[in-house]
């Protein structure tokens, strides 16, 4: 009992202590090397900047979060669907894969301007940029998961008379969850950069990226770092949320049993992909 509690609190305490240490070292470096405030501001200056400009930073933060979340969702959905389609068709896979790789080799900054001219200045081009960044790791990982499903498991399912659809549903798709979440954790951190790049291309809306550029133009590096801190916070929270979702969606990776539902026992076992049936079934 005590051991678990200690580990739990240590899990939160340790990163917090390390973060405090990083800020401490940062402050020390600025002071010891007498760094000019417009090159690297002290942490205190950054925090006070966050306080001063909070009325601007807060809506900017929500703007960037909106771009991040919607773009992330779109990217994941497209990536997943594409991966499943490519997993089912070898031709599609061979044909599309090189195009997908090429899409990632193009620097986002180069296409951002073109996207803005097509799609306007609002939310849409930013969502597209974030989605572009997110969808590729999702496709690669989910496709990997699909192609690396144990052939013997599929043979077993076939021997049991399952059709292709049921094999997809019960054997192949669940095998994609683990690689999917790996991709999502990566994507959650990349997406923040994507949102900022989108804001940098052209914008009528605000956002932390826009704030960052404005502060940079005024040589207010404390402002730049304020935006950076908030962007990091968004990335960290995003990552933690994905990690949490991973825990819920793939409990078998870390737990011996699924989480208990209060009414589990009387119904038998909680099914996930399997629908429950109340009347006597057939065999």
């Amino acid at each position, binding site marked *: 009992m005590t051991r678990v509690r200690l580990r739990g609190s240590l899990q939160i305490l340790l990163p917090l202590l390390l973060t405090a240490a990083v800020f401490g070292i940062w402050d020390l470096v600025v002071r010891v090397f007498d760094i000019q405030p417009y*090159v690297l501001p002290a942490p205190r200056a950054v925090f006070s900047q966050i306080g001063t400009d909070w009325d601007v930073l807060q809506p900017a933060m929500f703007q960037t979060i909106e771009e991040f979340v919607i773009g992330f969702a779109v990217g994941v959905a497209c990536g997943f669907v594409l991966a499943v389609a490519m997993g089912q068709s070898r031709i599609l896979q061979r044909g599309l894969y090189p195009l997908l790789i090429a899409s990632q080799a193009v620097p986002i900054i180069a296409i951002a301007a073109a996207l803005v001219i097509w799609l306007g200045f609002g939310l849409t081009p930013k969502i597209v940029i974030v989605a572009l960044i997110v969808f590729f790791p999702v496709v690669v990982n989910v496709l990997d998961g699909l192609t690396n499903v144990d052939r013997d498991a599929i043979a077993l399912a076939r021997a049991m008379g399952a059709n292709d659809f049921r094999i997809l549903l019960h054997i192949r798709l669940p095998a994609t969850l683990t690689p999917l979440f790996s991709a999502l954790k990566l994507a959650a951190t990349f997406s923040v950069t994507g949102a900022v790049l989108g804001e940098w291309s052209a914008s009528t809306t605000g956002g932390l990226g*826009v704030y960052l550029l*404005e502060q940079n*133009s005024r*040589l207010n590096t404390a402002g730049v770092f304020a935006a950076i801190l908030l962007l990091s916070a968004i990335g960290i929270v995003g990552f933690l949320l994905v990690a949490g979702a991973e825990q819920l969606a793939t409990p078998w990776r870390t737990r011996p049993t699924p989480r208990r539902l209060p009414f589990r026992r009387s119904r038998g076992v909680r099914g996930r992909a399997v629908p429950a049936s109340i009347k006597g079934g057939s065999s």
Partner: protein
Amino acid sequence: MKVRVGVVVAVVVAALSVVAAYGTTRSAASRDATKLTTVRMVQEWPVADGFWIPWIVARDKGWYKAAGINLQIIPPPTVADTVKFLGTGRADIGFTTILDVIFAKEQNAPIVSIGAYSQSNNWGLIGRQGEKFTVASLKGKTVGIYNDAWTKAQLSIMLRSAHLTLSDIKMVAAASDVVPLLLAKKVDVATGVTNAEASEVRTIGHQKPFMLLAKDYGVPNSPIWLLAANTSWLQKNPQLAKTWFKVTKRALAWSIANPVGAVKMFEKAYPKAESFAYALDQWKSTIPLFKSAGGYFHQTDAQWSSLLPALKQEKLVKKPLPPKSYYTNAYIGG
């Protein structure tokens, strides 16, 4: 097994020879340079543009070398880095904007303006050919701007002259270039200067833009660009700074008298940066900006005292200093 070892050895030898070659070329360069004094000049923009013509001409005609100067041109990673380089001593001279100098001085950066590049404010609002507009007619229109604070401030002052505010217009901020948006009719008007955005509209958009200049609508008529230097470098090398200006003035005069030749030299030095047509339009639009009663690069108190109160009012500067704290004419010579 044997083959693998061979491959590793070959790679290591290749890497070492590359490093050695690099080392020898570097030491060869510095051997030449010890006869000359290196002056590191950081620019205002990461990519070469026609504003650099005076010192490119001076360099490529060998006039700096003849005066004992090895000019090193340093493009900054981003526009905000120019004064950072100057302030930290990574550069000696900088081609920068008046706003950058004011912001830097507010943060106690050791820099000072040593010469005005242009003598007036040539910033304003640019519209497409045949689309005349007034400030008042901008109500409800879309304006392409850049993400810097002084653009918004100047725009705000201009609008005030027609009793409008920023909320009466729709602003679209572009990070690098607002002209494509104007040409693609995604914005109604764009902010810019006569010798960049307007040049672009003329040469790339193949049309004559309609322009309203900010200084006609209440915005201070301060020059946009100037040359600044690191103060401790100036203290140690006053003669070098003066010599630099002497050479640069000579190149400037030549470039004004021979615009086509000057642009040709620019194109030779930076063939991919701008098209010849654009660079020529740009340089020709810049030439009128140099004219000054006190001679090229001359600065006055008025250039600063007209600007600083406006900046204070727009909350961009907290504690303006007296003009003489920002500039000195000590190095530009007679």
